[in-house]
């Protein structure tokens, strides 16, 4: 039955997340940006309430929530501040891989480490993404001899703080490999950079591999197994990232609505100029369209529908488009006030641009979706 009604449990979580967003995340956004790190109060509360483990499997002590529930909660949290949500210590994007392969031996030590509820930080580097060139090279012919990884990545979220790295990269034979790299045991390095655009509390860093030798123990999956796991995890991640984007655009919409309702020019509220109110209407529709596509993809993935991965491409590309429109429009509608840091909209526009760069451009996602539609190829869902 078609319904848009959240469950009672979801409503309770959303209420909690909204409170946290309003009382902790939003007030800490600027200072966290200056300190280039998530506020401690946020990370403590997130751990206490389980927000760092929404995606982790129950048998690991995680929440193992459905994507439709997570989408709503992440939207509510990101409404507070997206950079802080992205900068939350813990398993991060790797949680989706753990969710899908909970018994994988490569994750065993991490699982034990986090049993007390404190999950060390993991960064995820996808060097298999055909839309993103990475100067990472893997050599070596077999497990027996190990692989040698060399090169330097593009900037990666949370790499600056990560104790572990989950790396997806093509091996010497062109087949996909997924590696789990413990920073203490391997020699990958996080290279700081000069980051000024956005999501500045989320630990941007490049990852450098200096002829790093890895053994069989570090391989999470290879070949078809790796492709399958990567494809399934990426579909989940697209939905989760798109949900966060809906949270950010909702913040910008709300702020611009209130501002234009109260700010006066030429003797009346800005809202009374149709050039303003119609733009606001476009923003509201863009937000709702993105939200419903995110829910559609989340619901389809939860149900393991064959179309689900394609819908996740739809959701993320639409979210990118709406996010760009809404955050840019919010700055525009505040005029000069939108451009200065007295108001949060300039930060949201910067965060939005960084978020889109982080998650693959709208056109690339559309093209991939289009190729699926024309060739009727489907990614793996189960």
């Amino acid at each position, binding site marked *: *039955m*078609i*319904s*848009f*009604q*959240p*469950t009672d449990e*979801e409503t309770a979580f959303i209420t909690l997340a909204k409170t946290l967003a309003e009382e902790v995340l939003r007030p800490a956004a600027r200072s966290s940006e200056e300190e280039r790190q998530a506020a401690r109060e946020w990370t403590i509360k997130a751990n206490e309430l389980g927000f760092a483990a929404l995606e982790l499997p129950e048998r690991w002590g995680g929440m193992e929530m459905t994507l*439709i529930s997570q989408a709503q909660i992440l939207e509510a949290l990101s409404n507070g501040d997206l950079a802080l949500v992205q900068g939350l210590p813990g398993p991060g994007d790797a949680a989706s891989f753990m969710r899908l392969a909970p018994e994988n031996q490569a994750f065993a030590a991490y699982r034990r480490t986090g049993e007390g509820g404190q999950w060390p930080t993991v960064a995820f580097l996808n060097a298999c993404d055909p839309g993103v060139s990475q100067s990472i090279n893997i050599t070596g012919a077999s497990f027996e001899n190990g692989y040698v990884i060399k090169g330097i990545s593009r900037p990666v979220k949370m790499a600056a703080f990560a104790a572990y790295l989950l790396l997806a990269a093509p091996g010497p034979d062109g087949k996909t490999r997924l590696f789990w790299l413990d920073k203490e045991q391997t020699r990958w390095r996080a290279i700081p950079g000069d980051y000024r655009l956005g999501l500045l509390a989320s630990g941007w860093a490049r990852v450098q591999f200096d002829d790093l030798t890895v053994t069989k123990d570090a391989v999470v999956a290879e070949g078809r197994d790796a492709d399958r796991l990567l494809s399934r995890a990426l579909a989940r991640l697209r939905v989760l990232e798109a949900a966060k984007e809906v949270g950010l655009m909702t913040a910008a919409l709300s702020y611009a*609505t*209130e501002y234009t*309702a*109260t700010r006066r020019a030429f003797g009346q*509220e800005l*809202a*009374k100029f*149709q050039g303003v*109110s*119609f733009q*606001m*209407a*476009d923003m*509201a*529709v863009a937000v*709702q*369209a993105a939200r*419903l*596509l995110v*829910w*559609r993809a989340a*619901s*389809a993935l939860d*149900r393991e529908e064959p179309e689900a991965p394609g*819908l996740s*491409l*739809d959701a993320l*590309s*639409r979210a990118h488009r709406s996010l760009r429109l809404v955050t840019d429009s919010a700055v525009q509608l505040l005029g000069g006030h939108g451009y200065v840091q007295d108001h949060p909209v300039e930060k949201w526009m910067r965060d939005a641009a960084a978020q889109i760069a982080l998650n693959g451009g709208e*056109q690339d996602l*559309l*093209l*991939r*979706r*289009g*190729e699926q*539609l*024309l060739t009727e190829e489907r990614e793996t869902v189960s």
Partner: protein
Amino acid sequence: MISYQLSPHQQQVKDIVHWFAENEMRPISLEADKIGRVPDDWLEKVNSLGITLSTATFGESDHEHMDSAASGKENERKGERQGNRLAVIAAEELGWGDAAIALTLPGPGLGGPPIQAIGTPEQKRRFLSIFNRDEPPRWGAYALTEPEAGSDVAGIQTTARKVEGGYVLNGQKIFITNGKRASWVVVFATIDRRMGRSGHRAFVVEKGTPGFSCPRLAHKMGLRASETAELVFEDCFVPDENLLGGEAYYENRQSGPSGFRVAMQTFDNTRPIIAAMAVGIARAAYESTLDMVRRDYPKRGRPFQLAAGTLANIEQEIQSARLLTWEAAWRADIGRPNAKEAAMCKAYAGKMVVDVCAKCLELFGTAGLDGQWVEKWYRDAKIFDIFEGTNQIQHLIIARHLYAPFGVRV
């Protein structure tokens, strides 16, 4: 819980209506467009099958309750209204088949919702019971727009002067779907222009009433098989019993916007249906173009890449419009206000269908101009961004709802 799964009953309605669209509407679609009308024998045939255009057609019924109960599913709560969701599901399929023919299907059409909403039991019986498969095909119509009052609904000039036993109507209505063939028309008029919206009244004017005439049918860019009439009322006497809702309805709402409210509430129900038809047209164009590109385009290179990106964008736009439409219908079903959502889906779908059809035409190139549905769909599409409230009016409604919490009236 949030769900996009069709219930067995919703799926059944979708499948049945799709079958009808594919096997009964599509075969006559291009010919109907060419001759500018839907053949009478076809209308008689579908009427005898009991197929009508009415939001009530797909609404609550004993059958629906039996179906839901028989499924035994807890999430299909017995008695949960789903008429609006069923209506938009069906409307999408009808739009996919042929929107002009869909609007010409026998039945009360857009005139049905106001009668259902505020009609007295007697009026509902008199005006809605005439649509019967055992009778000749009949239509209802909805007459609001005037030459000087299109989007500005509040500015209608048609007058209703109270006289002994009824009202005398004078004025002109334009762009009235099925206005000439209709057995009755819901006509909006003002009892006193100085009263503004609170002076509005809705009347059911029956065909053949002295002073009521249809001097002209419009020739249009698209939807050519659909009848678009101009109606004239010259000292047209309408009895009291044809005042929609009766005198009591308006007496109880002295401080409210009366007939204006009726017109607006009708839009909250009909805009999602119109939006769903737009989604159906867009889907038809998309599916046709997807088939053509798969068949005729090179499998790699620049044209393939361009087509892939364009088709993905189109598919996403259709999905977005459909979900906005479903949400508006769902809110109506569960009794929540849906004016903002109805405006959102109408604004989005109306613009989307024009963009989608234009992009499909581009992908077809000149091949799309010669005897192809895609050029017809493009011509049909544009009106969906205009009727039932233009895109600009929808923006105004959305904005009003956004600013309402701040006490700002835009």
